[in-house]
């Protein structure tokens, strides 16, 4: 008997029944086809300015830095200032060609490398699929020109997000995923602040393996 | 809440530790129950609630002792004990009997009418003790079973406050003292660490007196206090409520 069959048989024996009949499976199937949210914490049900404020507060509490921009034109200067502030080389990796184009016409006040992030890159700029105000998280997904490694390999990870991309809670993210992507992508990554560990001497340090810094460039809608 | 006008009959479950080590606590309990307007009787066919056997995995003995107690205490309005852990055990009695066993029903009914002393006085009788001159300053140890199985935390504190005693909370009052019945003997080195922390916490409170509602905890803590030569008195809270402070505290020299 295969391990698979043995395990399923053991489970059924323990539960005191045979495999579920189609009629018994039907309600379970129906529930899976139309998943319902469980209790959603009331404090997360926000919109408008309150939603935005919660996102920023939570992101900063998670030790991400947040910079609010009025329009896209401010982006190159904002990035240049950030690189200078942290004494990083004036070079930025941008995996998404569309995002690179958004930065505006050359010359930019830093070198732009349009390719997936590599280990050793000081700074990498990505967009995001969504952001969640519940926890101040940005959400990356896998796809074309969307290497997941860009959220982990560089020393500093910069994320451009628009305020319209911010949803209130986990459940709203799932609605967005189902609506826009149909099913889950190969990888869906919530990022809430920079990488950290306190495993050595119980002293919290940033940059355990992922980025040392997470900088959110928040483009507010007019 | 004034004391209800009825006079229920309360059967006192003395508990084996009170019976053996500190009967004055039972006398204090009787006094308090009478002051709260109850008629108190003490059924004679009582020995132990069976918790040592139950926790050691000997369900058969636990069942027999439970059976013995249910019978000895049948017919009384209430069963009251000066111990959260023993009443916690009484409330487990239904599980010891098969559902079709008449004793299961008996145990279920008794589950609703068995109480720890402070819980009974406050919640069932609405008893308010009169203030006592020279009521002491004390810190309080929350015995685990009473706290987590029965929800006892505010009741003894409330009674003591009404008595005029002054509470100074110690850090980690709700952390286990390391008694745990046979645990303190089976894992004595760990138990020793736990009781040492408890004594340190009590000392940190600066109160000269530690009160609690379970004699197991109290013997454990008082025994450690004595061994370390720490200046801390240990008593059951009933002793303060019944004004028994002239008696030696636990582990203190007794006059001839």
């Amino acid at each position, binding site marked *: 008997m295969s391990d698979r069959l043995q395990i399923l048989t053991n489970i059924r024996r323990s539960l005191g029944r045979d495999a579920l009949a189609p009629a018994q499976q039907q309600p379970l199937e129906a529930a899976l086809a139309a998943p319902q949210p469980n209790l959603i914490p*009331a404090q997360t049900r926000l919109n408008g300015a309150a939603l935005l404020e919660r996102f920023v507060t939570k992101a900063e509490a998670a030790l991400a830095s947040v910079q609010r921009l009025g329009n896209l034109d401010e982006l190159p200067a904002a990035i240049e200032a950030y690189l200078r502030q942290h004494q990083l080389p004036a070079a930025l990796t941008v995996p998404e060609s569309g995002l690179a184009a958004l930065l505006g016409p050359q010359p930019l006040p830093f070198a732009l490398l349009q390719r997936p992030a590599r280990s050793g890159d000081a700074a990498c700029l990505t967009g995001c699929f969504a952001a969640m105000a519940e926890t101040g998280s940005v959400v990356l997904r896998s796809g074309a020109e969307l290497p997941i490694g860009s959220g982990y390999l560089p020393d500093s990870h910069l994320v451009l997000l628009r305020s319209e991309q911010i949803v209130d809670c986990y459940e709203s993210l799932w609605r967005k995923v189902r609506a826009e992507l149909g099913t889950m992508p190969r990888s869906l990554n919530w990022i809430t602040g920079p990488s950290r560990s306190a495993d050595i001497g119980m002293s919290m*340090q940033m940059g355990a393996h992922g980025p040392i810094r997470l900088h959110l460039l928040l483009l507010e809608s007019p | 809440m004034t004391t209800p006008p009825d006079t229920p009959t309360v059967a006192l479950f003395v508990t084996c530790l009170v019976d053996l080590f500190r009967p004055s606590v039972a006398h204090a309990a009787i006094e308090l129950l009478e002051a709260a307007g109850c008629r108190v009787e003490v059924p004679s066919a009582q020995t132990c609630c069976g918790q040592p056997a139950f926790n050691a995995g000997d369900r058969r003995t636990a069942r027999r002792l439970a059976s013995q107690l249910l019978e000895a205490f049948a017919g009384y309005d209430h069963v009251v004990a000066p111990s959260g852990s023993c009443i916690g055990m009484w409330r487990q009695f239904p599980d010891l009997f098969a559902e079709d066993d008449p004793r299961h029903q008996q145990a279920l009914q008794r589950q609703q009418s068995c109480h720890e002393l402070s819980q009974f006085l406050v919640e069932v009788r609405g008893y308010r003790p009169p203030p006592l001159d020279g009521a002491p300053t004390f810190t309080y140890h929350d015995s685990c079973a009473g706290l987590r199985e029965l929800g006892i935390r505010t009741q003894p504190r409330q009674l003591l406050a009404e008595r005029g005693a002054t509470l100074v909370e110690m850090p980690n009052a709700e952390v286990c003292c*390391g008694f745990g019945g046979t645990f303190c003997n089976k894992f004595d080195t760990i138990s020793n660490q736990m009781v040492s922390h408890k004594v340190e916490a009590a000392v940190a409170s600066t109160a000269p007196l530690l009160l609690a509602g379970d004699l197991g905890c109290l013997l454990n803590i008082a025994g*450690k206090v004595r061994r370390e030569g720490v200046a801390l008195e240990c008593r059951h809270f009933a002793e303060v409520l019944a004004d028994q402070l002239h008696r030696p505290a636990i582990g203190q020299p007794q006059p001839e």
Partner: protein
Amino acid sequence: MQNHSHEFDNLIGRALDDTQLRQSLSLLRFGLSFTRSRAMAELPEFDQLRDQAVAIKNHTLNHLDFYLERLEQQVKAAGGEVCWAVDAAAASQTILDLCRRHGVRNVTKGKSMMTEEIDLNARLEAAGIQVKETDLGEYVLQLRDEAPSHIVGPAIHLTVDQVADTFHQHHRAHGFEARTTEIPQMMREARTVLRKHFLEADMGITGANFLIAEQGSAMIVTNEGNGDLTAVLPRVHVVVAGIDKVVPTLEDASTLLRLLTRSATGQECAVYTTFFTGAKRSGDTDGPEAFYLVLVDNGRSQMLGSELKEMLRCIRCGACMNHCPVYGEIGGQAYGSVYPGPMGAVLTPALVGLERAHRLPNASTFCGKCEEVCPVRIPLPKLMRHWREQGFERQLEPLSFRFGLSLWSWVARHPPLYRLLTSLSVKLLNRLGRRQGYLRRLPLGRGWLAWRDLPAPQQQTFFASWEAKQNRGRGASDV
């Protein structure tokens, strides 16, 4: 990891003598208790979420076969493969086979208790495959060949100096000549060295906090990001998880996730929360070419039909051990098991047998703190008592204990004899101890008397004085 639960009593002694361990345990214990309380206070619906979590887990367990089959279907639809392993040996053999199938020589690992349970590292290393733990604490322990002392902080028993020595010994080969005790510098070193391992790995192995049947997704949470680098860089990603990890929907996983992080460390959210669904798709820029989910039973399907069923609700948050006063004194290594603390005391005998592990469920005062903090309301003391009942039937306790208990039990069932014997004993103990107020030397109770005195009883038992009073007629209460 090899089980050493039969050495529990020796290991306790060692733990209690380890000052560094005990200092760190104390800090961690009260720190984590504080952060959990704060997280709970900030989420008013915490207890309602617990109730929902219990319902979700119970429902899933009662339909476990259905959800596992659905999970398998969805993983396959996403281009992954599912391997079922009935026990630890089958699981590690399966993974070894996968290594051979893909010509794997270097493996990176995210933190996974299941891989410890099946003792995977030893199996792979014996076959000549290099395995690198990437969780920083686990990495240090791997270099030192030591077991973890805590689920959240595996290496808390180590001083900074000890870690510095270990790094100095192993990092020279990577170009770090100088020994340092500056923690930021040590982190940078570890980051650099492990980054190399991440990049050269052929296969990444992670566990899963939850497996989501609806989508065929495996979810992990980390604060370091090591799980993600383990999963995304190599050409093969293997997820190893117990069959009890499955939950129906993304929404159900969300509910459990809200409880998991708050219960474990008091965080609202971990830094990295990732959902893996199958293998690299056409169009994906990076990701593993092959994705495998290894579903491990190892006794869980049996537990499902036993008195231990409720244990399968466990989401491995660690709250029980973070709050346990016994674990708080001795740490994780003493249990000699993959799973320490209260949940370990329940699970370990099921995994390695009661004969080997029966001291674990006995090392509890039943204070109930574990059950109080468990996000899925597992009645841990009741389950530990179940093991004690089994142990009692199999006579696993020492003869002296069983005899003492039998004697007490028999006498207690005969009140008149009980009265006589207790009356005499108390009179004697009182006489011996009343002048001082306590007794220090007795032929019994060695464990008690080693550390405490025994308060002397009052003059006579309650019933001796009560009967005397009844005979005299009722008067003022006296002793």
